[in-house]
């Protein structure tokens, strides 16, 4: 497979994707038919395991393994959740999927649900994505008319209902247990694990939660086989990935590239390099919970790998140039996490608040000796003592900023 392989974006800009006929004409819903008439749920999971597809929602967990555990649960009721909550700053790839190819997502949702034995699926969409919720509603109607969902899909024994659940503005609700709480009508706070949602999830039933981008890989894998998929991209994590390129570059865009692509290639080849008159300072990879990288790290490859120095996260790449005020970035990161901390656990609730206060003092040039002494403690607590990963996320960019830009933050440096 060459570098040109397009799985998620193959129809973008080519067909009127909101038209189901156009999608079908381009080969759409063929994977669903293949699954229905030539495969079984067990052989479906097998292909996905062979593909070594891993989750695109950030954590990079093996999709096949997670699917298999839900499939194996003996329960007459199971749920599938498409996670389209997407609220990480800098991340709008899942919105682009809906804008450009809603039926690809639906086909993926239908196949994934049937594989694990769910007869009800929820698409949990960011509450600000009103237009996209509408696009999906129409797409669901069209798919139902064609018999791709509902009772007895294409006259098979499979049935599936899909419902759209629109969020109410809380970043933490992207975390799967918090998401489940919010569908159940509770505060969107994360729950302890185990039990895992794969065993006891939505309404107490086995539930598979997958990111929208992850799901869009499923039809391709079903059609072309897991072995073909595993040939694409990096050895450690095969497949392609959507990267969201933004900031001080020429081409602000969302591109699909094989995993294992270097940050330099993303910025220089696909982002068109630095915008006119802008000079690279650092980049943030994976959204506001992502690490900051300097020029020397540009050749790092982006792939899902637990040991990776630079986690891919959501695939967001924000290029920051020398004219940007680091104090404003600190304020942006810390105020985001302070606002979005759900408040359930003290280390995160307090830690995010204190970092934000320090960021405000830094901006006013009033950072104190005491602040400098406590910063490492706060970062340690956030990194090690919080209930869910949000607390850890809150420490990442702050840590890298203090580590790399201490002088600028303390305003000792002349402004250039």
């Amino acid at each position, binding site marked *: 497979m060459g570098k040109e392989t397009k799985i998620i974006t193959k129809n973008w800009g080519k067909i009127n994707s909101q038209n189901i006929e156009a999608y079908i004409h381009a080969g759409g819903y063929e994977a669903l038919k293949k699954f229905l008439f030539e495969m079984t749920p067990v052989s479906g999971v097998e292909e996905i395991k062979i593909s070594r597809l891993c989750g695109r929602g950030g954590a990079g967990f093996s999709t096949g393994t997670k699917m298999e555990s839900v499939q194996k649960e003996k329960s007459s009721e199971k749920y599938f959740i498409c996670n389209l909550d*997407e*609220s*990480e*700053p*800098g*991340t*709008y790839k899942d*919105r682009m999927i809906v804008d450009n190819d809603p039926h690809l997502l639906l086909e993926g949702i239908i196949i994934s649900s049937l594989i694990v034995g769910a007869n009800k699926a929820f698409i949990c969409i*960011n*509450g*600000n*994505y009103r237009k996209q919720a509408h696009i999906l509603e129409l797409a669901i109607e069209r798919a139902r008319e064609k018999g791709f969902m509902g009772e007895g899909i294409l006259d098979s024994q499979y049935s599936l209902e899909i419902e759209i*659940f*629109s*969020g*109410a*503005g*809380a*970043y933490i609700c992207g975390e799967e247990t918090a998401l489940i709480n*919010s*569908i*159940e*009508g*509770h*505060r*969107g*706070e994360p729950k302890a694990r185990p039990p895992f949602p794969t065993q006891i999830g939505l*309404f107490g039933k086995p539930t598979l939660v997958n990111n929208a981008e992850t799901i869009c890989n499923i039809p391709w894998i079903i059609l072309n086989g897991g072995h073909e998929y595993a040939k694409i991209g990096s050895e450690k994590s095969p497949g392609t990935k959507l990267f*969201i390129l*933004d*900031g*001080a570059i020429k081409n*602000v*865009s969302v591109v699909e590239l094989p995993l294992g692509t270097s940050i330099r290639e993303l910025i220089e080849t696909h982002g068109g390099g630095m915008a006119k008159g802008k000079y690279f300072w650092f980049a*943030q990879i994976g*959204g*506001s919970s992502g690490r900051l990288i300097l020029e020397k790290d540009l050749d790092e490859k982006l792939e899902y790998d637990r040991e990776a120095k630079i986690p891919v996260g959501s695939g967001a790449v*924000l290029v*920051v*140039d020398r004219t*940007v*005020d680091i104090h*404003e*970035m600190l*304020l*942006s*990161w810390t*105020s*985001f996490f302070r*606002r*979005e901390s*759900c408040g359930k656990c003290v280390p995160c609730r307090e830690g995010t608040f204190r970092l934000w206060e320090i960021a405000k003092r830094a901006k006013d040039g009033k950072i104190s000796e005491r602040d400098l002494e406590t910063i490492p403690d706060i970062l340690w607590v956030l990194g090690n003592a919080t209930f869910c990963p949000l607390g850890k996320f809150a420490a990442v960019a702050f840590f890298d900023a203090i580590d790399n830009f201490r002088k600028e933050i303390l305003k000792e440096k002349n402004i250039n």
Partner: protein
Amino acid sequence: MTVEKILLGFDPEPRNILPALKKISASFGFVDEENAQKMADYFDISISRIFETATFYDLVKTKKRAPLEIQVCSGANCATKDAYRVIREIERQLKIKAGDQFNPKIRLEIVSCLGQCGNGPVVIINETAFLRVTPRKIYDILKNYL
């Protein structure tokens, strides 16, 4: 639409609690005690349970809204594109401070990413989104609301 009518549009099941709250909030501007009580009765849960959920979410309001509500995204991507200068400019022109509850007519709120990062900075005024806002453009935008 009356609150009863809104409620009857939903089956009284847990998965409809948040959608119903959002709808009531959007229709009446916020969820007041009277409507919360009706909702509690309809869903057969306690009113404290209603507010427990309602107060968690940004898109469900539990306080009366101001006639002019301005939200500015300060997410990292918008921050690299001068969002903070836009905020300062709004503060200067309207003589208010972000987050301040003092002025009953105008409220300026800083919010997180709105999923339009490529087109930032994003400003939302009474539900209308403005993209690629600059400190210079903000005056012309605000003019229409004053």
